[in-house]
């Protein structure tokens, strides 16, 4: 069965929806790659919760600055026009509704947009809430970028989240390797489906009931 997009292609797809001029916070992990795929003619400004507006590409070996890391701990650079601030200002930026989007990873998303991404209830590991809760209660729009299924093949899109919630009813759009899904008042709508996959194939790999959008398109991305 089709595996759909690669992880890089998933990040590329999410990046295509970021219009010129938007301010965006990216979650740790897969979402961080979104910044590498913004079309060159758009100014999209990335915020990092540890106090940077205008995060640039990863620092080249030998050019790292110990004072410049992003939320994932990666050594980064600043773009021209970047600004530095303390954590209180950073979270005012998030909670106060000053960021247009946050794109986060998730363990599970429910049919109504509930998000679980801070505690996977692992036996030997501690959870991380980090800035996720502040972001989802404050960013103008919350999007999720994640694999459609777990490594064991279980759906991550579910009727009800089994893991502790980060927030209820906050996710508006989900990008996976198999589909682009919108959470609407009428339910979860399949906007784009990976080539080689039928709607019923997609439904079979999803734990929540989907509706096929009238204008559903193939989910395609360039070779990356």
């Amino acid at each position, binding site marked *: 069965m089709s595996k759909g997009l690669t992880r890089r292609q998933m990040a590329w797809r999410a990046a295509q929806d970021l219009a010129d001029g938007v301010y965006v916070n990216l979650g740790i992990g897969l979402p961080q790659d979104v910044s590498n795929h913004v079309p060159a003619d758009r100014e999209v400004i990335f915020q*990092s*919760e*540890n*106090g*940077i507006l205008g995060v640039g590409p990863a620092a080249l070996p030998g050019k790292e*600055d*110990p*004072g*410049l*890391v992003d939320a*994932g*701990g990666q050594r980064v650079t*600043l773009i021209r026009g970047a600004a*530095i*601030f*303390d*954590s*209180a200002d*950073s*979270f005012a930026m*998030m*909670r106060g509704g000053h960021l247009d989007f946050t794109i986060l990873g998730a363990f599970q998303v429910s049919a109504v947009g509930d998000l679980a991404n801070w505690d996977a209830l692992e*036996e*030997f*590991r*501690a*959870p*991380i*809430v*980090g*800035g*996720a*809760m*502040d972001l989802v*209660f*404050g960013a103008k729009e919350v999007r999720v970028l994640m694999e459609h299924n777990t490594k064991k093949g279980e759906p991550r899109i579910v009727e009800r989240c089994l893991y*502790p*919630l*980060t*927030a*209820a009813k906050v996710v508006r759009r989900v990008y996976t390797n198999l589909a682009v899904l919108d959470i609407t008042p009428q339910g979860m709508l399949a906007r784009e489906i990976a080539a080689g996959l039928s709607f019923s194939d997609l439904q079979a790999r999803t734990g929540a009931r989907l509706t096929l959008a009238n204008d559903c398109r193939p989910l395609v991305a360039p070779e990356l």
Partner: protein
Amino acid sequence: MIDKRVQTLADALDGVADGCRIMVHGFGVAGVPEALLNALLERGTTGLTIIANGAGRADSAMQKLFAAGRIAKLIASSGRGRSVEPSPFEAGWKAGRVEFEIVPQGIFVERMRCAGAGLGGFYSPVGVGTKLAAGKEVRAIAGRDYVLEMPLTADVALLHAERGDRWGNLSYRYAERNFGPAMATAAALVVAEVDKIVELGDIAPMDAHTPGVFVDRLVEVT
């Protein structure tokens, strides 16, 4: 004459006692007062409550404090780093030797800011309807639910800055600033390690991110 400089890390930690609540600056590796934490380890102080964004990287002084059994409680937004193996903190927590209060990062810093600004608490929408808001007072304001968050104080704050002067003015390098300014306002004793102690006036007034009034002791580390 005001002179907050001390000569040694041991002097910088003078009076830090067993059972103290200690705020620790830093995000990932940026802004962590690693020399002060190593001095705290050497000092042998125990039963500590650590208030920090995370539990520290695998080889950090903070994890050494956990491994040595010095920390009784962690208040943080993150309980794990990028390491594949569970950390000494995680082992201690899972075994019931260490208490863990997990706080959303923005609430973590705002509670400190609140304490440092003389406020009695604040209402926040973050976490409403989740288990992290369980038991908190809920209040509807203009049609939205908020929970009451309380100030977060400490006996000691340990900070790291790039430059400091004898009045205690601090200037942080890039994103090493993170929690430093809030922690500097919220603890009874504020101790900063700095890469370089400079003359008064060398830190331009607009670069004094933490004004000296908030700082009690300053030690140069290399």
